């Protein structure tokens, strides 16, 4: 009996090889990813109780890089100005915390609204351009805001940074403790919610239209759509995410610095996203964790070792693995799937 099976006709084997097992549905994969992020986050909480400060920063940065993925991965907008949106959210939440409100969730809302409005205002202007001009305009917006934040010392603290952000307990129940436990779990919850909302948006009719715009804006116009409207729309959504990420950083770290509005911070977001793989949300999380984790290990000895490492890594990705880490994993998974009978 077994012999008969192994000696199956050649045609049947060929068919078995070409028939790829059905891929799990998108909804299922999305749910698994969310579970992995939440589970991994909780595991890290138990494994590294001493490093919660760093881990909290990583989570907030994941949300920031996710916001870049929304515009770069789903709309194809190459921008070096994401820090403008992040920093706007961070400063708005920081200033609100010092002068107006102390509820952490309300502060996130303030940051998100500020980031969204900044994205809407600047996006409507800069998204007419393409290529180098667009890159340059997004850089210029960021630099202008940074100079402005530096200049408005009385409001922002200038180069000393804005300190004195002391939020109330989350939901009135969980006090921000000195070990950073509340901060970490709060950040994890915000990130998980952010990922779920982002998944929802990219699978929505709006997300579908944005993918169309990314591939061929003129064709979308020929279907009666407005490509620029969708670009500005997604840029605004991305601004809300970046603003919430900035506010989250301000709330959990208690301080907002000028570097949150820097060109370097924009460039780092791009590097982290591409490291992880753009265009499917999870790459943002994977890339951020990898980048900041290795940064923590290498930069503590010598910042230039870190630069050498990340520089070589970036070049290798462009030359050998254009999909980033997640793309590489998917490719290997694809090979394995095809080999399996």
């Amino acid at each position, binding site marked *: 009996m077994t012999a008969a099976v192994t000696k199956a006709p050649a045609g049947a084997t060929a068919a078995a090889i070409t028939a790829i097992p059905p891929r799990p549905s998108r909804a299922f994969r999305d749910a698994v990813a969310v579970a992995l992020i939440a589970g991994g986050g909780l595991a890290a909480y138990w494994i590294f109780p001493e490093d919660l400060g760093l881990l909290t920063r990583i989570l907030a940065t994941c949300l920031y890089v996710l916001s870049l993925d929304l515009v770069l991965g789903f709309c194809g907008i190459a921008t070096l100005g994401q820090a403008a949106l992040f920093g706007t959210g961070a400063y708005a939440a920081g200033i609100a915390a010092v002068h107006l409100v102390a509820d952490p969730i309300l502060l996130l809302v303030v940051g998100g609204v500020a980031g969204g409005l900044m994205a809407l205002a600047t996006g409507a202007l800069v998204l007419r351009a393409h290529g*180098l001009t667009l*890159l340059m*305009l997004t850089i*210029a917006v960021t630099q*202008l805001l940074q*100079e*402005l934040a530096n200049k408005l010392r009385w409001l922002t603290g200038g180069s000393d940074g804005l300190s004195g952000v002391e939020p109330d307990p989350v939901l009135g129940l969980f006090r921000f403790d000195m070990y950073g436990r509340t901060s970490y779990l709060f950040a994890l919850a915000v990130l998980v919610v952010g990922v779920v909302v982002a998944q929802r948006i990219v699978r929505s009719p709006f997300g579908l239209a944005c993918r169309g715009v990314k591939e061929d804006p003129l064709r979308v116009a020929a279907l009666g759509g407005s490509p620029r409207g969708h670009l500005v729309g997604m840029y605004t959504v991305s601004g809300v995410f970046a603003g919430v990420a900035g506010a989250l950083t301000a709330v959990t770290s208690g301080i907002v610095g000028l570097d949150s509005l820097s060109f370097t911070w924009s460039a780092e977001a791009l590097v982290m996203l591409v490291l992880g793989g753009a265009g499917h949300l999870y790459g943002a999380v994977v890339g951020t964790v990898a980048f900041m984790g290795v940064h923590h290990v290498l930069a503590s000895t010598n910042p230039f070792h870190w*630069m050498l490492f990340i520089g070589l890594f970036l*070049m290798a990705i462009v030359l050998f693995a254009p999909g980033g880490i997640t793309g590489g994993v998917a490719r290997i998974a694809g090979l394995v799937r095809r080999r399996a009978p």
Partner: protein
Amino acid sequence: MQTVYGIVIDGIAYGMILFIISVGLSVTLGLMRVVNLAHGAFAMVAGYLASYAVQAMGVPYLVALLAVVALTVALALPLERLLYRRIYGSANELAQVLLTIGLTFVVVASVNYIFGPTLKRIPLPEFLTGTVDLGPKEIPAHRAFVIVVGVAALLGLWGLLERTDFGIRLRAAVENPEMAAALGIRTERLYAITFGLGVGLAALGGVLGAELLPLEPYYALRYIVLFLAVVAVGGAGSIFGSAAAALSLGIIDTAGKYLYPSFGEFFFYAAIMIILFRWPHGFFQGKSA
């Protein structure tokens, strides 16, 4: 009045440095369609090499200048062959940005490893430390030298592109690469030569401009934004556009820093935004070489 004079002289000299470095970037962007964020890294390498040659080896300034430019080009050409050639063309924008940021990181790390993470100086020779009498006014000799070299670079490039066989081929290749290739122009060699030219200009500007753009550990990252700004405002591939953009941005930035120092680079970036809104392809796009 003295302030205005100071602003004009310093602004022009600063603009000339921006021009010398940025025009190299503009030509490679115009021809190979490559957004080369590592352009500043070549200027940085040249500056550090020159600093070492003059300070540690006692090489005369002008000799060091020429030798370092040649050496930097020699170091960069293999990179063109191994890295850049894979990412030419406008379809690869993101890959270009990432590859060249990566290269910049590697260069910054290596330069700091070799020469140490401190601010470097290139001591000026005696004939550049004094002033030059210009009738009623005096100009610092170094500024005068920079301006003269800048004008020479502008005229030299113009002559090269407008008056030589090389220039004709280059412009043909910029206009239509496929057609140029079909006409038997060896675009690969043309690209390599142009890339070398761009790197040479970056190196020249890096050494000459060490007084105005100080040689610090993060030089390549800090100043690339300035060079990109000049190219975006001037229009990729345009020599006169780069010169006009570099000079006006140089003067605006210098004036802003003289008159309102607390605003930092606010005026520089405000000017860029206004210009790019009005002329998204740069002022001189399509008007001249």
